[in-house]
């Protein structure tokens, strides 16, 4: 078994993914079948956000990846320019 921070990070990721999965499943799959007067509905945002939030976070992720790639490319170009 891995030790120390590896275990903490690993099981933390598992827990985060389970939480996100159960919340999202309840939101998308279970809520339409529950009576609209039930108290559970106040814990969930309006349904449109079930598409908007993953879409926005997906675009944000792409932006961060693009920025990282740009940064690395600029750094390597500056390094080769200094070597010339």
């Amino acid at each position: 078994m891995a030790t120390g921070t590896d275990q903490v990070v690993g099981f933390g990721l598992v827990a985060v993914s389970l939480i996100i999965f159960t919340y999202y499943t309840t939101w998308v799959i279970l809520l339409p079948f529950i009576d609209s007067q039930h108290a559970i509905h106040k814990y969930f945002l309006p349904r449109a956000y079930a598409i908007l939030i993953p879409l926005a976070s997906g675009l944000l992720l792409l932006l961060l990846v693009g920025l990282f790639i740009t940064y690395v490319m600029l750094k390597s170009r500056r390094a080769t320019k200094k070597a010339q």
Partner: protein
Amino acid sequence: MQRKGGSRRGLPGADADLVSATFRGTMTKLTQWLWGLALLGSAWAALTMGALGLELPLPCREVLWPLPAYLLVSAGCYALGTVGYRVATFHDCEDAARELQSQILEARADLTRRGLHF
């Protein structure tokens, strides 16, 4: 003349035609995935837009339209969870690690003695 798939080998040339590639059973994994996605996507689109004319009950329609986003999010969660689990249960070999580190130091010392500079 009809072409039967699979049994006639030795057809001349590289046949790039997608449909005949399907008949010959030589579709690449990419094309298989694209076909599957296209079929599921068109089924989903037909059902959501009501093109088939079936009146689905309201809760079913409410579940159906975010379905692609839901599948993407759950695939992402599965990937994240699997990565996390494998990181947590990876077998560390402490003794082998220490032995390797000492061998690296030994090798460095040996090479610097022979004149190689790090």
